[in-house]
């Protein structure tokens, strides 16, 4: 039993090693890109946790990205503590935010929940833009006065992103093997049946929502920490959730490998279109929109769902 619990996590070791060694091979630009991809994997996994396992599709996850980022920048400027130590507090901020809005939002189903949380994100974004203590619409720069080694900052940001990417996937693997994970899978498959075997569906959803919010907030904080600059329009940009939704949808909702594949495709497409072909940034979003349309019609379970033979697909769905 022990071996079978830990063996699926064996992949984390070579990945961690690669992450440790990576700064020797990668220049700053590539490290930044890699960070972005790894953080996106974390975010997509968190979106997938809520949508694929909790059954709640969110169009407002940018709320948590922004909350996490602003929690970091604000705490840094207030307390002067090193950003690294403040990061755990950002995930707390995200989790609290989720717990706060859950009672009101959980009354809503499907599209109403999706748009309801989007409206909350817009409200928070507007409030932040109007708060001068948070930099207003002009934004905030990261207070790094407590950092001793600025040189190491780029690498640290990269390693933190790696850690989040690896931990989010490994964490989900572990979660899905736990009792809570089984409960979530049951809720995903058939809510009524889950209730009938005594699963408290609302509680399971709330836990998924809080974890999702907390980790998304942490990922957002790490992302903006690396860039050292934060504006509301970037922090609460709806394109965050566009990426999360598309990556999860294209890769395969409700599976752990799906969001990883989806994120790789998303960034792969972006880099190919923008860098190699020199096409401007907007076109890749158009392409992603078109891909989402096609995938939603012809492969609603995502690319991962397509690969499985019909009988396995039925078992998985």
């Amino acid at each position, binding site marked *: 039993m022990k071996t079978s619990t830990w063996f699926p996590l064996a992949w984390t070791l070579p990945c961690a090693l690669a992450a440790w060694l990576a700064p020797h091979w990668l220049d700053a630009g590539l490290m930044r890109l890699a960070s972005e991809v790894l953080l996106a994997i974390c975010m997509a996994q968190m979106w997938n946790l809520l949508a694929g396992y909790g059954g709640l599709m969110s169009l407002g996850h940018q709320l948590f990205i922004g909350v996490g980022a602003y929690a970091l920048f604000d705490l840094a400027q207030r307390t002067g503590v090193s950003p690294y130590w403040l990061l755990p507090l950002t995930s707390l901020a995200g989790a609290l935010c989720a717990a706060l809005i859950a009672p009101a939002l959980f009354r809503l189903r499907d599209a109403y929940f999706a748009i309801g949380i*989007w409206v909350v994100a817009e409200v928070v974004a507007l409030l932040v833009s*109007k708060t001068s203590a948070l930099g207003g619409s002009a934004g905030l720069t990261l207070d790094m006065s407590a950092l001793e080694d600025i040189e190491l900052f780029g690498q640290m940001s990269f390693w933190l992103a790696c850690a989040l990417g690896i931990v989010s996937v490994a964490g989900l693997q572990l979660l899905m093997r736990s009792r809570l994970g089984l409960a979530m899978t049951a809720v995903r498959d058939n809510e009524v049946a889950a209730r009938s075997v005594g699963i408290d569906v609302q509680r399971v959803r709330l836990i998924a929502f809080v974890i999702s919010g907390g980790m998304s907030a942490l990922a957002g904080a790490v992302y903006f920490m690396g860039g050292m600059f934060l504006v509301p329009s970037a922090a609460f940009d709806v394109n965050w959730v*566009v990426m999360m939704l598309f990556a999860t949808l294209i890769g395969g909702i409700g599976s752990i490998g799906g969001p990883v594949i989806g994120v790789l495709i998303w960034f792969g497409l972006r880099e190919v279109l923008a860098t190699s072909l020199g096409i401007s940034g907007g076109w890749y*979003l*158009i392409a992603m929109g078109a891909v989402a349309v096609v995938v939603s*019609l012809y492969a609603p379970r995502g690319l991962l769902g397509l690969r499985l033979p019909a009988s396995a697909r039925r078992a998985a769905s």
Partner: protein
Amino acid sequence: MDWLSTLINGLLLGGLYALFGLGLALVFGVMRVVNLAHGEFIVLGAYAGFFLVGWFSTVPVWAMLIPVVLIGYGFGWLLQATLLNRAVRSGNVLTPLVLTFGLSVLLRNGMVELFGADSRAVDAGALGSASMDLLGISVGVYPVLMLLLALALFASLQWVLQHTEFGRTVRATADFPDVVRLMGVKPERVFCQVMGLAAAFAMGAGYLLAQRTLLTPFSGVERMLVAFEVVIIGGLGSFWGAIAGGLVLGVAQLFGQRIDSNAGSLYAHLLFLVTLMVRPKGLAGGRA
């Protein structure tokens, strides 16, 4: 007096908001689909009008509404026939949501690439700047016309739905799309007609909006959220509720802007969230 002016202008703005909500309510009521690209339809109408006015400068600006509306109908019909019918018939609640979200991203960024990101407006000419006296307040003629147009459209749609064969068919299809097939009706065709109407309303409203304010390809998101809020505040399934919802939101928006000038749609959004918590079935108390 100033507050009365804000109230009246809020009501006039509310008429436009109600128009935003009308198309969304129609699509949701008949097909149970929330069209997340609705905002982009609105902006498309603005751009369509903008270009038509530019190319055919001899035609009066108000008359250009007609071709915009017709283009909207065709566009909605085509979209439903090629893409959305498949999504609706899939039976999966997520599919139309994701499809329309993908469509909105596609349209939004497509417009940026094709038309550029700078803001545009349509010059309504003399009619646009004319004002009249209402209860001692000077209000723009145009906003009054828009409110009257919104009311007229709602009333006509309601009449068509209640008193014509087409309206009966639409209502029956909304109830049981499979059963109407037993009566010789193709539900897919009804959906195309309804989406056509919804897109026509949306694009028309967008064209009217462009004569009041500057728009960019990114303006769709906010309008879609407003439309959604109008429908929810008014109460699902009620058209007159949607009018009431629009008026209430319009007033909230302008009062909010008065007390807090750079708040954007904050107060409208807050009103929506409060309504959700206090009275989730909306003003008319439709099905939630």
